[in-house]
């Protein structure tokens, strides 16, 4: 490490990540040097993409090819052969070898496997990191290559491809695409660079990744959806966050639907579900029971007062936004707040005597731009209450379907117009 503090990438480490950037990204990448044509650059890239040694150190023709590419990509001012063959100059001249422990490797593999599920993207990333494109999977080879790459740029070398590392890799791929004179969009490199760029726009820094996916055209997506469990808000680290990142985030909102059920099993009895409704500060909210989902719009009624909105991030109070970058909604369903209701449920009626009462809240959260539905995340939060002790478990989060959609599910549309008659979102 050469005079640079390590940068923590925001991966998941022991359940939480606390990355904070202490160095800056290199200067923006230039367009291809007019003196080097695309064929030269292509040949340079081809040489660079030959099977790499462990250290990818340059020599001979490979070094010359690397230098040519680096010059086209904006490193002309460096006037030196760089220690590694990147289009964007490393910031650390001679990084020490990185050794990841078994635990480090496991953590990196777990996190990267949640984030990177697209084989084409993985091939490009593996290739640029100098390891075999195939198998196009998340494995320890990838983690080690990532860690070595991170060390070259003064990042925390943990093998996790979080937002900071994604940003660096996006710059690298953009530089290489520029060097090749590729069109501004489309193609493997541009597609991967765009996805990594959107991943790099994520603002949340705590919690465990549950999902990441993309909104819009496959070869040039508009945005990225990132879901984290056990995110931090105030004093609680048991929240879920759903974040949209993209330059159009100002025009995007979260529309969330909720169906909840409570059940217990009395001694010698069978699982018994609460029926009717739970009385909330916003009025009665119907319980769902098996086979009878009671979906409702998860919004505060008559809020904001001037123009009531069905959007979670507009009507509610747990969201963050960064202009032209991010729109986040945060939730923490049930938890300790339902202890009293659970004890009452177990005190009388068909569930009387249940030692444990469980509330399971199911959600469908949509990304909406204008009146158009673009993405849906189905997730759940489950809390178990120990009736006698009057204590609640942490909220356990789970995720179901998550991906691009073009319409609301019919039951959600029904719930929307029931609460907001005439709402045009379909």
């Amino acid at each position, binding site marked *: 490490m050469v005079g640079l503090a390590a940068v923590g990438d925001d991966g998941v480490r022991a359940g939480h990540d606390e990355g904070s950037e202490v160095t800056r990204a290199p200067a923006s990448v230039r367009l291809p040097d007019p003196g080097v044509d695309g064929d030269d650059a292509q040949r340079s890239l081809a040489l660079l993409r030959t099977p790499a040694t462990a250290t990818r150190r340059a020599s001979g023709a490979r070094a010359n090819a690397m230098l040519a590419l680096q010059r086209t990509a904006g490193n002309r001012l460096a006037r030196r052969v760089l220690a590694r063959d990147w289009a964007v100059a490393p910031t650390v001249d001679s990084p020490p070898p990185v050794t990841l422990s078994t635990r480090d490797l496991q953590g990196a593999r777990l996190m990267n496997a949640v984030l990177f599920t697209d084989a084409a993207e993985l091939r490009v990333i593996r290739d640029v990191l100098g390891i075999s494109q195939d198998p196009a999977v998340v494995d320890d080879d990838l983690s080690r290559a990532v860690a070595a790459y991170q060390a070259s740029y003064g990042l925390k070398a943990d093998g996790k491809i979080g937002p900071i590392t994604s940003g660096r890799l996006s710059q690298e791929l953009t530089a290489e695409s520029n060097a090749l004179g590729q069109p501004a969009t489309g193609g493997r490199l541009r597609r991967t660079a765009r996805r990594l760029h959107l991943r790099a726009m994520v603002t949340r820094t705590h919690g465990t990744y549950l999902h990441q996916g993309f909104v819009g055209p496959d070869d040039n997506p508009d945005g990225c959806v990132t879901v984290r469990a056990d995110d931090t808000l105030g004093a609680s680290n048991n929240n879920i966050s759903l974040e949209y990142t993209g330059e159009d985030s100002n025009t995007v909102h979260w529309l969330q639907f909720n169906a909840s059920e409570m059940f217990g099993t009395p001694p010698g009895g069978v699982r018994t579900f609460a*029926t009717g409704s739970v009385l909330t*500060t*916003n009025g009665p*909210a119907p319980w769902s029971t098996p086979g009878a989902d009671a979906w409702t719009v998860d919004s*505060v009624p008559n809020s904001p007062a001037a123009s009531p909105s069905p959007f979670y991030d507009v009507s*509610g109070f747990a969201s963050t936004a960064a202009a032209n970058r991010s729109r986040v909604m945060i939730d923490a369903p049930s938890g300790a707040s339902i202890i*009293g209701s659970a*004890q*009452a449920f177990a005190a*009388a009626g068909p569930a009387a005597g249940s030692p444990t009462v469980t509330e399971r809240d199911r959600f469908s959260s949509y990304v909406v731009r204008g009146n158009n539905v673009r993405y849906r995340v189905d997730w759940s939060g489950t809390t178990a209450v120990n009736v006698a002790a009057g204590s609640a478990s942490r909220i356990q989060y789970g995720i179901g379907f998550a991906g691009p959609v073009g319409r609301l599910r019919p039951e959600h549309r029904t719930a929307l117009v029931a609460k907001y008659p005439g709402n045009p979102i379909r």
Partner: protein
Amino acid sequence: MANAGGCKQATGIWQVKEDVPLEDDGGRLGLDTYIFAFDGDTATLRLITTTLGQWKSDDDFYRLAAECREDGLYIRPPFADWLELATFEDGRFVQVGSGRKRIFERIGEAQVTEFNRAILAPREPHDYRRRPDGTLSSQT
């Protein structure tokens, strides 16, 4: 049994004693209220807050505006319209809905279970100027 005194005079702490199946619930949606206190003008009971960050009381109990309309006891939740909490019949309150009839009995303070003791704490009536974000509006 006649509704001696009627709803308005049925003050005290009321807790579910029985919860029995009911064939004809009139198509009503049941409520999950287990205990409430009624003083003739206000009702104190526990409510859930479903939206993260929305204003809530410290202990989830609220002293709400209440009124009797014939035998029906109506309450006004903090951010919702008036609704019928229970009906006074045969000298006690009942809740009917979702295929069940929940029968309340009047209890003394000593009978209030530990997890509901907060219902006994003195508290001001809810201020309906309170907005969901916690600020106060100039109108009720």
